[in-house]
């Protein structure tokens, strides 16, 4: 079987794949990045929290001008996840602004974004309606 590695360490390639956050033990603030302390309450202790694979679109844009290596157009979304946490990713199944309506519900999906010289696949994630 091909080795796989997530594009970012907050994507967990389990079954099913999902996102995880560092949750502040004191105030429950959620973070996707490695933490030194909590920006909300200054707490120092964190534990891993599994985030929901579903949520609602808070904001979006359809990018038309980008670096030459990036295929355009593509849709970027900020998703408020059910049960807490927010994430930015691509909305994979439309580039039509009119189709993105208030509180549009979306689900996480994963896909291979590239393969390195060892044959390891990098797996990314995005959202579909």
């Amino acid at each position, binding site marked *: 079987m091909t080795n796989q*590695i*997530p*594009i*970012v*360490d*907050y994507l967990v390639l389990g079954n099913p794949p999902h996102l995880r956050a560092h949750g502040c033990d004191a105030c429950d*603030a*959620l*973070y*996707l*990045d*490695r933490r030194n302390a909590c*920006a*909300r309450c200054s707490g120092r202790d964190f534990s891993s929290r599994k985030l929901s694979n579903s949520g609602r*679109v*808070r*904001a*979006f*844009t*359809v*990018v*038309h*001008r*980008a*670096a030459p*290596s*990036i*295929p355009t*157009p*593509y849709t*970027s*979304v*900020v998703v*408020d996840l059910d049960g*807490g*946490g*927010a*994430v*930015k*990713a*691509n909305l994979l199944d439309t580039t039509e*602004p009119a189709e*993105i*309506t*208030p*509180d549009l519900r979306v689900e996480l999906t994963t896909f291979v*974004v*590239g393969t*390195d*010289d*060892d044959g*390891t696949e*990098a797996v*990314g*994630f*995005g959202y579909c309606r």
Partner: protein
Amino acid sequence: MSSADVWVIGAAMTPFGRFADKDVLDLATEAALDALGDAGTTIRDMDALAVGNMYQADAHNAQRLQKQIGQTGIPAYNVVNACATGATAVRVAWLSIRAGEADYGLAVGVEKMGKMGLLGGAAKKRADRKVFTPSGRYGSVAKPEGLLGTGLMPGVFAQAGTEYALRHGVSAEQFAEVARKNHAHSVLNPLAQYRKEFSLAEITGAEMISYPNTLPMCCPTGDGAAAVVLVSDAKLRTLDPDVRRRAVKISASVLTSDPWTESAQVQPDVNTLTRAAADQAYEKAGIGPDDLDLVELHDCFATAELLHYDNLRLCEPGGAGDFISSGGPWRDGKTPVNVSGGLLSKGHPIGATGVANLFEVVTHLRGEAGDRQIEGARVGLTHVIGLASACAVHILERAA
């Protein structure tokens, strides 16, 4: 008038544009000497110097400027604070006076950007990446731009705009109308980088950069400088009546940074800190949004300006779309916004921007804005926000 007041007695800016034959020191010198001259002062009167500059911050341009215009041994501060860099330099001079350490302060903002392209896009290329190796605070194995949404400035401010639009029902045409206004305003401003009017159809039909922002809805990069001379209340009382007559009071100077919000962990929240800065400024100045005769706010993208109508309380909550449709922020509207042409058309040499908008408001309050003068202007507000985040708001009042 109280002893703690700080006044602007000199203000100047260079034209904004692209000046291949001028370097940062040429631009900074021009603005600084013009502002000093406008105040009837020289660098030898100054007790503190603050120079805001983003892209050559490690060149220490405050001291380099002194080496062009006068090395008097005063404290010199090099300031960088994203798009609030210039306004933060003004605050350093203001704080020096407020602290009792200076009677006079000179603040300069300067930037030379040329044609930099999309800001936020210049991520360093990874070293030869033969084997995926997680690195950084997200343990990433590939550049996220384009794979995990967009973090470039056009996309960030587009998403800030659509968040508001999804909640309050703003149309793409309403966002475009902001750009139509600012480009139209800039025709009257000889200092603006661009002075070309566009129809709404030309704006909505232009190249889409990041929906809903088309090309004329995105500010340009460019070169330029601006400077202000500040003075303490006590010193002002000793100055020539003509200087006192043209003096403009800084009724509030506020700088804020981000409070924690959940969504801002993945997409900058340009609203919360702007609202906090505006509310603090109104309270300190004892002035409300209805008292403002003009506003220069941070329209880096058309979407951004629309949000700030609401953040600065220029419209009803949620009513920013209606506000632009009603003509409220046009120069003949309820609260003229960006009569200079704004960042969209006057230009946005980053370090200069937060000083140049003080120059604009000061010039109107003095009744010296020529063709673009807002008649009888007595009170104005300036606003800048940079993604760090940093937000500065100043409220200015003309001398009674």
